[in-house]
């Protein structure tokens, strides 16, 4: 494609575009935490619908966050909005989607939603009400957690292990034509469970810079290396998603 010259306000200049400090929308799949529960047992593992291959009970932990049902939407893509009031982070969980390794949103109606655990127990939440169900989480699930205001905390060892199992899980194309002087790539696929998914990226994201350097589609593996090695300075990312923008900082521990 040719560079885009905009009719009303002129071409985006190199200087302008070089200042693209673009941000991600608030990640909706931020890790939920809560008080620790009794350790995960072999029996717990046996009941998980999708255990990690080869994982031991010690690879999991059980927590009990305070979950509040903010509401339900019953459109053509039904979902429930559930807030963890220990972190005040909320996520939209589609009907049938897992909430954690052992919990799924299995039914919903006007003013309520039902959560089923892997042992078959069902708990009903009223809109506005709270529950503290025992959640089982694998270490991969908390490999990268959103701390708010564009800051992520990453456990390098756990993310590296997830990478071995799932790969980086992302592909991209160049978008040099979009903003003159500010080449970027657009993620064309982000596979669930891969490194980029765990870091909060989504299909369609425009990535301009990682650690101040231009990114090319062939750089994704090398980019993933930055997130899987502990370091003193955070990895910075400049990106655009859906018209919302900011700079992200990943602290790698």
């Amino acid at each position: 494609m040719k560079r885009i010259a905009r009719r009303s306000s002129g071409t985006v200049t190199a200087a302008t575009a070089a200042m693209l400090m673009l941000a991600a929308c608030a990640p909706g799949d931020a890790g939920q935490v809560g008080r620790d529960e009794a350790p995960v047992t072999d029996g717990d593992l046996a009941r998980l619908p999708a255990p990690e291959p080869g994982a031991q009970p010690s690879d999991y932990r059980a927590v009990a966050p305070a979950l509040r049902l903010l509401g339900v939407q019953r459109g053509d893509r039904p979902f429930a909005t559930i807030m963890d009031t220990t972190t005040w982070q909320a996520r939209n969980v589609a009907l049938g989607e897992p909430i954690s390794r052992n919990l799924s949103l299995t039914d919903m109606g006007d003013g309520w939603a039902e959560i089923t655990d892997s042992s078959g127990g069902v708990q009903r939440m009223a809109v506005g009400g709270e529950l503290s169900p025992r959640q089982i989480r694998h270490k991969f699930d908390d490999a990268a957690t959103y701390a708010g205001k564009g800051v992520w905390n990453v456990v390098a060892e756990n993310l590296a292990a997830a990478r071995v199992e799932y790969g980086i899980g992302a592909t991209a194309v160049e978008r040099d034509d979009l903003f003159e002087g500010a080449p970027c790539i657009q993620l064309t696929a982000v596979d669930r469970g891969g490194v980029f998914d765990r870091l909060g990226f989504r299909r369609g994201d425009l990535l301009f810079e990682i650690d101040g350097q231009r990114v090319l589609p062939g750089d994704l593996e090398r980019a993933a290396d930055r997130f899987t090695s502990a370091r003193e300075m955070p990895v910075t990312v400049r990106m655009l998603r859906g018209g919302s923008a900011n700079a992200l900082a990943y602290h790698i521990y």
Partner: protein
Amino acid sequence: MKSVRVLLLGVAVTGLAGLAYAAPTKLSNIGDSISQGFGANSIPGDHPDLSFAQGTSEDVGSLFLRFLALDPSLTQEPESVSGAELVGGGDSFAAQASRVCAQAVKPDHVTVMLGGNDVCNRDRSDTADATANMYSLDTWLNGLRAGLDQLAACLPAGATVHVLSVPRVDFLYEAGHDKSFWCFDIIWPVAGICRIVTAEDDPARRAQIGARIDEYNEATTAELAAYDTNANGRNPAGLHILGDWEGSIDDGGENTSIGAFVFGEEDINGVDCFHPNTGGQSKLACVAWSSTSEGAGEPTVCLQ
């Protein structure tokens, strides 16, 4: 939801019910990319100096500068984050409220402006109901309460929480089409900007979405009143909790609040065709100021 207005700067005013409201000494804000001044100068990226809320540029005349004129020792500690929703995600109203409450020195005036992303982040509905995938009023109000409850519990007595209405993002469609092919042909589809309205060619369906935003604003206003009077028992410290909504466009309220502002091509920037430009931010500041206890001005004049 307007309170008493005064025209004289530097004068503490007497508000409703005989309560005295002094000019604030510390501001904070809760918001999204609009509060971050994103792209206001057509340079993509956050430009908080050009924000209607926290800006330091005289081109905008932000709330911060207007309050600063009342008290030169005024400070601010903003918490707004680009991309934030009122309801969802990791920077929701509740999450940002918790950060305000964690500030070492608590603010005595908090401006809240959220909601655009709650609309724009939702999937376009394939049904006859264009709002089918938008947050229900229950969800909206529970998200609002999760933030207000925290602020009501942590802010000092006499503090103000000023919740601004949600802009009618459905007007983006016309504004962008009037502005440039860049908007509707390039940047909106490629960057996926507010596709629930920018990809919606049917004006009747866009109107449905606009009507839902009106409902959010109506419900918010009723909720703010319940907090302000403590009729719901959730504001025992007696914080002053107000908004700017004066009614919908359909009810004759055009350009009387941010949520009833009919913005056009001249108000949005030329890069993402989504965020307010400097002039748009200036209008928001003027309207927001007009609905504070200390403020002055008429929204309809601000929004000309």
